């Protein structure tokens, strides 16, 4: 299958899906209260944008997302790399990590509210938790998997001082794994962003809850698609960055 044929097939599949959805509703096979007409979505989006609601929600959610990502990713990478490099530190927190790891980010919502109230900080906190674990494990395994021969190269060429080895061998060698973790975190972050806002923090999630209580399913779908689009854009930008940083790898 050529790339063009694949694109064509994918577009056909999506169009057919929307068409069937539209027809099922119009023919009365399914009541219109369950899902909105696909053809109504663009107009609803335009209305949301015209009222300024869409922009406000996107900016607000993006702020929670960005803060949570920055916090969770940086801490995850630092703690993960440190755990792989420092056996004592690793042993000290190994059981703690095993205990905390299975707790889903959303289970932290009660504490988030007690500690931070219904605030953007609470949302950022919840987002950062899921992102932290992904980056923690990705960085840890990436550093663990470094060929010990490369450390010997550093030692043989006078680059074995802790800081030199870290920046000249450890981090570049672990970069593919660390970047893979960051990318996975970018996706995980969007999943938690909506859930974190469901309990009333201004943002896409809150707007969706509001709309669903009014049975405005068309608005819900607008924001579902918004999340998908935002994620796609961010992921695509990240892949560009990743390719650039890893341009030394054989393609």
């Amino acid at each position, binding site marked *: 299958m050529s790339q063009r044929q694949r694109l064509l097939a994918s577009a056909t599949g999506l169009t057919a899906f929307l068409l069937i959805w539209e027809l099922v509703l119009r023919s009365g096979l399914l009541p219109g209260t369950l899902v909105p007409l696909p053809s109504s979505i663009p107009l609803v989006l335009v209305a949301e944008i015209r009222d300024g609601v869409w922009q406000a929600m996107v900016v607000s959610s993006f702020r929670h997302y960005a803060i949570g990502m920055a916090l969770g990713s940086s801490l995850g990478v630092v703690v993960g790399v440190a755990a792989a490099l420092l056996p004592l530190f690793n042993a000290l927190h190994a059981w703690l990590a095993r205990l905390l790891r299975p707790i889903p980010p959303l289970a932290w919502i009660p504490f988030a509210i007690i500690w931070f109230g219904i605030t953007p900080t609470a949302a950022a906190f919840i987002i950062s938790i899921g992102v932290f674990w992904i980056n923690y494990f990705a960085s840890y395994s*990436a550093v663990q*998997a*470094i*060929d010990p*021969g*490369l450390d*010997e*190269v550093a*030692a*043989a*060429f*006078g*680059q074995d*001082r802790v800081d*030199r080895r870290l920046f*000249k*061998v450890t981090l*570049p*060698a672990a*970069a*593919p*794994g660390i970047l893979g973790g960051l990318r996975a975190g970018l996706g995980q972050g969007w999943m938690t962003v909506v859930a974190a806002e469901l309990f009333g923090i201004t943002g896409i999630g809150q707007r969706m809850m509001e709309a669903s209580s009014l049975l405005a399913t068309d608005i819900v779908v607008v924001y579902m698609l918004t999340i998908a689009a935002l994620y796609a854009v961010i992921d695509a930008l990240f892949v560009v960055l990743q390719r650039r940083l890893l*341009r*030394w*790898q*054989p393609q």
Partner: protein
Amino acid sequence: MNASARVLQATDLAVGFGDVPVLEGVHFGLEPQKLIAVVGASGAGKSTLLRGLSGLLPPLAGSVALAPQTDPGTRAWSMVFQAPRLLPWRRVRANVELGLEGLGLSATERRLRAERYLQQVELLEYADRWPHMLSGGQQQRIGLARALAVEPRVLFMDEPFSALDAITRRRLQQGLVQLRQRTPAAIVFVTHDIEEAVLLSDRVLVLGKERAGPATVQADLPVDLPLDDRRNAPGFRSMIQDVESMIRTTPHPADTAATESQVIEGDPPRSHG
């Protein structure tokens, strides 16, 4: 032999991992521009010896004296590994500059030095490529340029040609013979190939062990043959046989068979790339 002219002196050296010696009672000295080949069955501690001599492994007993490097911008020793072990995220040029970093050289000085040694291994036109774009033999030559660039007084070479095809190996052996006339470095050359040892060296150090336990030096044989066209020199074959017989008298054929495949395997798999 004037001991003060030596750039390397091992005295009753024992090396190993943890506190278990792999090798003990190693005693030899090396003068500038000399090449000593280290041979022995697999598991006789050839690579361990290099790590002990260079200080990558601390001695368990005895001592190693390496002449200190007095010229600025150089290092006392450097190493060529069995696998090229280039840093894949650095371009060829930056790989050769690795050992020059932290020596107080300016960026221009580092660049010029790297280019000089890339020229010497005839790969200057590859300076701006990534290591993965080069063949195994080319990568190994970059590894050699990296080691030469720090202008060491002692160059350690750990089976540097063993992972290469026969033709490339011959070319690099020839290159090393020529290199020896240009560099003041003394070379410790580990190989499992006895012919290669006799071809390249001034002396052959045979490692081995009589029974279970640490290995030691079984023989230290001078190679009194002209370096040019040595393959065709009378006495080349008989010298190889002499060294071979020294190794054959070392028992533990089971050890040898069990570990021989490790040598052929070459590089450990890399997690990245």
